[in-house]
């Protein structure tokens, strides 16, 4: 389980970082989204992973057998903020496309 999550986070973050370096604004925004997924999974996994266990605590259960719920609360905040910022970025991206007439991040095509 840990291995699958770790590889998943790694692939998402790696692809995101690659796309972030690309010259098109659309690639940048997809890269940012992928990185945000990776980060959210990462925060989630910091509460430790546990499979096939009931999510609700019974009285008398040992709390250390359950995952820490706080990172799950943090990840909600992080998702909301990340999502809002990505939406804002999308608006600026469209404005830049309209004002500069190109989707290059520098606002002009590189000379061939």
């Amino acid at each position: 389980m840990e291995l699958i999550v770790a590889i998943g986070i790694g692939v998402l973050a790696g692809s995101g970082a690659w796309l972030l370096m690309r010259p098109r604004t659309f690639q940048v925004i997809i890269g940012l989204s992928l990185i945000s997924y990776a980060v959210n999974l990462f925060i989630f996994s910091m509460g430790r992973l546990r499979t096939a266990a009931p999510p609700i605590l019974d009285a008398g259960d040992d709390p250390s057998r359950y995952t820490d719920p706080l990172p799950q609360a943090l990840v909600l905040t992080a998702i909301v903020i990340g999502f809002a910022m990505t939406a804002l970025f999308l608006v600026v991206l469209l404005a830049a496309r309209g004002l500069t007439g190109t989707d290059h991040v520098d606002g002009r095509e590189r000379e061939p």
Partner: protein
Amino acid sequence: MSLASHLIIAPILLPLLVGGLMLVFDNRKLVAGLGVVSTFAVLAIAIVLMQRVETGNGPESIVYLLGNWPVQFGIVLVADRLSGMMLVLTGVLACAALTYSLARWHRQGAYFHPLFQFLLAGLNGAFLTGDLFNLFVFFELMLAASYGLALHGSGSARVRYGLHYIAINLTSAFAFLIGVALIYGATGTLNMAEIAVRVPQLAGSERALFAAGAAIFGVVFLVKAAIWPLGFWLPNIYAAVAAPVAAIFAIMTKVGIYGVLRVGGLMSTGEDGGTFLFGNGWLLAGGAATVLFAATGMIAAQGLPRLAAFSVIGTSGTLIAVIGIGDATATAGALFYLVSSTLSISAFFLLIELVDRGRLPADDILAVTLEAYGDDEDIDEEEAVGVAVPAVMALLGASFMACALLLAGMPPFSGFIAKFVMIAAALNPAPGSTGGTFSDWLVIGILLVLGLATLIAMTRAGIRSFWVSIDRDIPSVKVIEFAPIALLLVLSLALTVMAGPAMRILQETSEGLYAPQAYMKSVLSAAPRQPQGGSP
């Protein structure tokens, strides 16, 4: 339970509520009036808070438990000396920038005033919060508002560089989250004071995990502070934004410096005075490289806005390098420099717009080419004698000179005292400080190099702006536009006069950062209030 004990949350709540309220109204004058009232009220509250922290009879730091939860479970706000100082500085800049914007800038686009209030709430929250996750939340609030303000007035340059600005800040926000998650995973808490307690108890893999998280945190703060090689985003966007926005942005790089000081002070490794954020050597090297980058940029800058933007980077680099010496007296000098340079850069950004109003865009390029290829203008003797300087230009020129002296660190302004304290501290290191001889000389070197570069660049820009023989229009300047600049400059002058008491306070602030036990004690000993017996 008195209302006064809730005062600490007012600098966050007031702008947030007023900003929200503004969205309801459509009347421009009413909205502007609300903004002015709120901003000046926040400054007044900040001054009261700082006074309360400074007076010795109360506790060292004011701790506020939100929702009256115990410290271990709830969220805390903490106002200590450093927070108080940053709050007052933010308040002063906000008042100046807002007053300036009332002349014309606030009409250039929608929602200037609400965004300004949200930025204020985010800044104040970042300075007041006592836990790492809320630091992230307030950072994002501040940045979200700053994205809107950066694009205020629109135009191709603002949108293009705004895109870069948003992309880099989003990426660093995600890095911030990774750092928070790692630190939480290792220590099991997000409260800064409690982290400081648990750090020495960490061992083995947990310690390594924590160190990795803290290092990522450090990188995020250095991105905010625009340290080389993480600061390439800054010159373009700071030069492109509207003048009052740039004036308030001058404090935003200082948020990164605040993070390094606050979080770094609490995460001491215990060995050789270094912190988990960064080894002091790295800070020093990064700061020195930043100063060299800024000095080069200032001399190469075509046009005043870029010059001012590079001077922002220069001050950040100086601050980080001086903090890297790891000496309490030097850090006190750095704090003095922080206040002085932020005031003067803010004034400079406001001034630039007034000066640039009367000139053509081609003048800047002309100025640099003239210098490169020689200036073969012959001025007629008779003509040169009889030229009267208009009063507006004289005022602007005098302010420009004051800014130049302040930024270059020449007497009689506060910049000189700040540099003097830092150099003196580097020459006489306290016994047991980590700084070797080489690092002390390096700091002295970069302080002098930056001063020289600033002086050269500012003199050249000043000559080209005020003594040019190229025909230009006299800019029309309103009193309301010039008053904030004068206020900021008078404040720097007052800082020179009051340098003794100011340095004493800052020395105590700085010693508190290197010995955070008092901060930790006052946060961890804060107990929830018991409900009072009897009905009110």
